[in-house]
């Protein structure tokens, strides 16, 4: 048997790109890492494997605790982690969703080609940077009162539609049609609402960004055609989440669960994995609050997309509808959802926790929007600001291998503190502009340094492994033209 020695852990090779940490001790299931050896070298370089092993201790976890090809150390649960946990006898864990509930990505298409933008990049990037709130304390596209915010939390993009920030077609091209059922604004604390009210329609900072991109490669012509993508086309990628509202929801419930379910917590190896038993009051309340935060995040990205359409209309002096600025799809990559999955030949309802992982349902799955049901759901995997991003489709093996999931990005390689020692924000910006014709504007030069292309893993390798495993198939690749960040 081929093994991989990762210090205190020895992984057994199940088959190409599938590595298993056998069940031992308090582990309830084995752990699996889906990676090439090159990616495994990076994954085993921090606490990712220990955190993945810890995750396998969660009561009710099914099949395996799984690390995606882009996995890296998080807090409690690794980023790039997936766990399917029984929704009747198991638990739900806020830390296994993450603080930024429904952090995710959406892609907006246009009918523009790269040549339409060349020479106007600075004008476009400046206009986007001016129009779209970013960074710390940058406000939001709209300021809301409590009543409006509660409407957003319970109605999601339906609220945006009614207020003129969306069109019907946007809902048809969003996971859950932009409205997460089971959301309860009353389950969201006043603290969370106070933070969210001032931030609705804002990018935030860290690894969040808005990027104008050009399609450089198409790998599957038929699927790309269904997605409305072709080479040289201009698209816009928006990456952000539920802002302070979602962060506070996670914090609030982590503490409440810690205090209420101390006995369960004492059985777990990391306090950050605090979990509420399925069916308990706190499990129900957290699920309702998380769903509300999911709706908030969808509206957040919708408002940014609305502003983006307005900016393009101003810069190119055409109505955005004439430029066919339609939403390709919106995917969440920090989320827990009740989903039906096949466990030993039986349909079971699970809380599928995806933290830094993207849902990747294949063709034919009833939860894939009608527009894409014949080809599989679109998956958007952003790279760094100096590398490509990818559009994939749900692969035919995703349901059996990963509870219908794949990677969510390149995955970090270098710490933020080390990045700031090595890179200087202005130098990174100049280098990207001079050598790759990528125009970057940021509220903070330190953010540019922390997010320099060199701090990320090779996104090409992450996507290659996803494609080879058949969990998410490559459809197209894009490359940055303009990037704004906090």
């Amino acid at each position, binding site marked *: 048997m081929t093994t991989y020695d990762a210090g205190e852990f020895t992984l057994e090779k199940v088959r190409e790109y599938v590595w298993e940490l056998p069940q031992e001790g308090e582990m309830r299931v084995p752990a699996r890492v889906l990676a090439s050896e090159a990616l495994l070298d990076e994954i085993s370089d921090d606490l990712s494997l220990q955190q993945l092993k810890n995750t396998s201790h969660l009561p009710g976890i099914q099949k395996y605790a799984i690390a995606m090809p882009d996995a890296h150390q*998080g807090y409690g649960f690794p980023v790039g982690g997936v766990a399917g946990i029984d929704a009747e006898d198991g638990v739900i864990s806020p830390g296994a969703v993450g603080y930024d509930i429904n952090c995710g990505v959406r892609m907006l298409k246009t009918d523009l080609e790269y040549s339409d933008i060349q020479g106007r990049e600075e004008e476009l990037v400046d206009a986007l940077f001016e129009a779209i709130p970013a*960074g710390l304390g940058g406000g939001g596209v709209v300021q809301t009162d409590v009543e409006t915010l509660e409407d957003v939390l319970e109605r999601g993009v339906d609220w945006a539609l009614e207020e003129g920030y969306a069109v019907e077609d946007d809902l048809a091209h969003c996971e859950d049609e932009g409205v997460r059922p089971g959301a309860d604004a009353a389950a969201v604390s006043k603290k969370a609402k106070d933070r969210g009210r001032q931030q609705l329609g804002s990018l935030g900072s860290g*690894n969040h960004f808005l990027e104008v991109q050009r399609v450089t490669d198409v790998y599957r012509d038929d699927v790309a055609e269904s997605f409305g993508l072709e080479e040289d086309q201009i698209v816009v990628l928006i990456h952000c989440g539920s802002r302070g509202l979602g962060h506070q929801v996670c914090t609030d419930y982590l503490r409440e669960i810690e205090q209420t379910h101390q006995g369960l917590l004492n059985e777990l190896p990391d306090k950050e994995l605090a979990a509420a038993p399925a069916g308990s009051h706190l499990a129900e309340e957290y699920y309702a609050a998380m769903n509300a935060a999911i709706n908030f995040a969808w509206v957040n990205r919708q408002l940014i997309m609305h502003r983006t359409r307005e900016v393009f209309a101003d810069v190119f002096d055409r109505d955005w509808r004439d430029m066919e600025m339609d939403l390709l799809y919106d995917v969440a990559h920090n989320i827990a959802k009740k989903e039906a999955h096949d466990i030993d030949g039986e349909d079971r309802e699970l809380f599928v926790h995806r933290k830094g992982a993207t849902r990747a349902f294949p063709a034919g799955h009833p939860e894939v929007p009608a527009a894409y049901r014949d080809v599989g759901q679109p998956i958007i995997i952003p790279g760094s600001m100096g590398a490509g991003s990818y559009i994939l489709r749900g692969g035919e093996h995703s349901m059996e291998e990963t509870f219908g999931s794949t990677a969510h990005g390149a995955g*970090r390689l270098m710490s933020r503190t080390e990045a700031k020692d090595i890179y200087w924000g202005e130098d990174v910006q100049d280098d990207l502009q001079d050598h790759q014709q990528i125009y970057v504007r940021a509220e903070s030069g330190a953010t540019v340094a922390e997010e320099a292309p060199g701090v990320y893993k090779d996104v090409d390798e992450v996507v290659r492994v996803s494609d080879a495993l058949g969990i998410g198939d490559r459809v197209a690749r894009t490359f940055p033209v303009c990037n704004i960040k906090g």
Partner: protein
Amino acid sequence: MSFELRDHTADVAVEATGETLGGVFAATADGMAGAMCETVPTTGDRFECAVTAERRDALLFDYLDELIYQRDVRGVLPVDNRATVEKSGDDWSVDASARGVPLETISAREIKAVTYSEMVLETTEDGWHVYVVLDV
């Protein structure tokens, strides 16, 4: 009391020391501010906050969470932190203050949340030592 920012793959960690529990809490809060902004002006009015929790480490978690909340609702970066920690009955409490530097006057990045991951709060020969990972 002092702090250092420590490497973490995706996030950032603060390691702090202090002669007293209040001192190490304040140093950790200063570290959190340092993770958001390198250079801050001397402007801004002081504000106060108080937090109670069931354990010392839970109190540190809730104190840093409260500062993040105050940052967002006041629109200020809490710097020059001062804190006094006491045990009262079964609970622990912190009385704290900070100078709130208006966010529009600085270039700062966001810390999303405080985490329990790898958290250390322990006594040393010289006082107290803290290690805390913050979500970026």
